[in-house]
Each structure stands twice: as structure tokens, then as C-alpha cells.
């Protein structure tokens, strides 16, 4: 039950939207990273990691 005991309660509607949107964006990101990796691989460049 802990899941819903949040300090601010945005409600289920917002959560559902967020999960769908984040899922879609995560999918786009995965494709983009994959393409990027392929592109670097083809040119024989080392792979980098991102941080802040």
C-alpha cells in the first residue's frame, strides 16, 4: 500500500498519463541510443556514458 502514501497525491489519472508518456519517451530514447551506438561503432569511435 506504501505506493500511494505520497506526500503530494497527484491522483491515478496523472500517474497513468506519466507512465504512458515516460514509456513512450523511454522507447524513443532507447531507439536513439541504439542508433547512436551503431553510428559510433561503424566509425570505430569509443562509447561514452552520460551524466549530469
Amino acid at each position, binding site marked *: 500500500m506504501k505506493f500511494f502514501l505520497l506526500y503530494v497525491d497527484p491522483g491515478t489519472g*496523472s500517474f497513468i498519463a506519466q507512465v504512458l508518456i515516460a*514509456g513512450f519517451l523511454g522507447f524513443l530514447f532507447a531507439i536513439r541510443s541504439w542508433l547512436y551506438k551503431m553510428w559510433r561503432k561503424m566509425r570505430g569511435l569509443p562509447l561514452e556514458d552520460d551524466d549530469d
Partner: protein
Amino acid sequence: MTTDAPRHPGSFRHPGSFRDPAGFVAVREDHVLRVVLPPGRDDYALFAASPLAEKLREKQLILPFEEIPASESPHPGAAHVLRSPRLALYSFPYEWSVSQLRDAALLTLRVLRLALRHGMTLKDASAFNVSFAGARPVFTDLLSFTAYREGEPWAGYLQFCEQFLVPLLLSRRAGRAVSDLLRARHDGIPLDAGARLLRGWSSLRPGPLMHVHLHARSIRRDARRMRREGVSGRLAPAAAPRQSLKQTLALVDSLRRTVESITLPGGGSAWDRYYDDTVYSGAETRKKEDLVRGWIARVSPASVWDLGSNTGRYARLAADAGIPTAAFDADDAVVDAMYRDARERGDEHLTPLVMNLANPSPALGWAHSERESLEARGPAGLALYLGLMHHLRFTHMVPLEEQMSYLARIARHAIVEWIPREDVNVRAMTEGSVREGFAYSREGFLSALEGRFRVVESVVLGESGREMFLVSRT
């Protein structure tokens, strides 16, 4: 946030700090205490032990803090007590220009991203978690950090959209009016209302489409479902939606890109529009500057409020002297230009803010105690009251007596400029209108000072007849 003596006798806790069960804030004379209560103990321990706290400090994204013995808190049952320096003036989102709100939004996302990278997250996205130290936004709410649990969506998403994203998107259309909206709705602009106001162009761009329009639609749909099914319509925890850390990071990056893509209306022109001072000769302006600089040094105040700063020429004299200075102007575009300039220069002391002295920030929130009025955040050590009196007299019809009475409530000392009726700017406001009949005289001004301020020094600037007064509260 005035003095060590709480304005609500007997209370140690800041009266507006009651929402978070994890702890509360207490404001002392020169520092702020954050008292962590047992429900917040584990989260704080995790935060303090992780490299996150150090990183945030290093990057100056939060105010420095140190833990002091819990026994120093008069509050029984404190798990931890954290002490941070107190900012000279805590500003609120409805006092920020569009660029300031944008930078505060980006700061929140940056802090969140760093937290997520260290196994933590932010449990909310209140714009009130951010304030300005000079021209630099800082994240102030150390109790906002909580452990990240695998699979959980970000609890602050809706709040971020309502307090940052919607106001920023609206600012493209409404400009200044957005801070007025935020003043009326200090918890943010409801997403549903935001989606309606933003209908049209913005729904064609991916960021607003997802985070505002689809988001609002999902909330509406869920509200209908709840009405139909009652409490049983609430999702069971087992069925709760899950999202991976990567997906959350992708969401945060999308919010960042959306915020970054919001370009500001107008911009630079504000600099050219202003400078009332053009009626002065160059020599008079220099004299005024030297005078203000000298008087600031003489009073040596702990804080300066420039109550009608325009582009901040005189406020900067105080800031350059290392004094925390707030530069107020009613014009959002002018404040925005001043802020961007100060931010670029890395100004540590100047905080430009949107404030119309004819209608200063009121006390807001529960029992008028959550967000303090401008007056309650004073008094300032020194106020600059330059080129302001005639504006308030003739545009807002505030008698000089009223003006000096309010000034005495918000400042200990003041530098006041008297501009005679014959001045070209005053004539432009009054001639041929009913305002010509308004009481406005040097004698009236001096009598308005009586009983409130004593004149320490006065200097006539030159041909224009303008006169500068250094006054101190009696």
C-alpha cells in the same frame, strides 16, 4: 521572516511549514533550521550519506547546510537538525520574471536528475522549493529528497506541470499576467485550466501535447471513472502503474527540453525603453550615483530594497558593495532583462524581482501564514525610493503621507528622491488632467516624513530641482 522573536509567540516552527510530515522549518535571525522528524529520518540519513548532498553543494545547487546536535532544537522528538544560512530575502514564484521561473524549473529538473542518479528522488516539485541567492536560483528544501523505489513514477510530475510548465507556456501569450495568475493560485495553475487556456498552437508541439494536453485528458478521464465507480475505482497497489528509472529519466529530459524551448516574449527592448534619467544632465546622474554610493556606505545596511529600480542602476551600487539587494520593479520585461544581465555576470548579491509597490505581495495560503507579505519579510536595512514618489502619487493616487507611512514600515533607512512638480516627467503626467489638482509639494513631503523619519542629509542635484534625502526612522 523577520526577527528571532517569532511573530506567533510560543511557536518555534515557521507558521507556514506544516505540510511535510518529514519535518519543518524554523527561521532564526541569521540562519534557518530544518528539523527532521522521525518520518523523515531514513530519507535524510540516505541523503546525507550519499555523494548526492556533496555534489549538490559543490555545484551550488543548494544552500550549504550543516547538521547540529538535535538537542539544540527546542522541538522534542527532532531526529536531525540542519542549519543553513538565511537568505536576506526569500522570494516567491509570483515575484519572479519569466526567466527566473524558467531557471527555477530547470534547477528543479537538474536536482531531480542528480537525485535519480544517486538512488533518490524528489517527493514534490513545488516552485517554493526554490529561492534566489543573488541572481542564482537555489534549491532550498532539503526535506524534499526521498529514497527512489524501483518502478515508481515521479510524484512531482503533476505539480511540476502546474507550477512551472503551464505558467511558462502561458507566459508566451500573457507575459506579465502570469505572475498575477500565480499569485492568485499559489499552488499552481490547474492542469485542466492550463490545457484549456493553451488550446491551439501549443497542442501541436510534442512537449506541451504530452505533458499538458494528454496529461490533462488522462486526469479528466480518471475523474469521470472515479465518479462512476466511487472509491473502488482507485487502482489497487498491485495494479499500480510502474515505470523504470530509464523511463523516468527520459521523462525528465523531455520536460527539460520543453522548458528550454520556451522562448521569451519581447526581451531586450526593455533596456532602451527605460531611463527616465535622460532628463538629467550627465553631471547630475554622476552626482546622484556618487551620493547614493556614499550614503549606502554610510548606512552600511544588512540589506537593501530598491523599491522602484527600473534597470537596477542604483540597486547595483548596493550589490557591488557586497550588500544583499533586492531590485523591485513592476515591469516584468525590465526585471527579466535585469535578471538575465545579473545572472550572466554571476551577481551574488542582486536579486531582481517583480513587485508593484502600489500592490505589493500580500500574505497568502492557509491562515495567511504560508507565504509572507512583503512587509512581513522586512524591514530592509535601507530602501531606495528614487523616481518613485510622483509615479505613486499621480498614477496610483497614493498621498505622500501614505507613502512615507508605508516606507517607514518596510525600511529602517531610506534614500528618497524628491522630484518637483515643475519637472518635465511630472508635468508629462499631470498637465491638462485632473491630476494637476493633486496635493504634491515639497512641504507636504517634509511633513509626511515627520514623526516617521528624520532627515539625516539632503542635497539638491542641480538645475532640474530634484533633491535627494537620506532619512532614518525615528
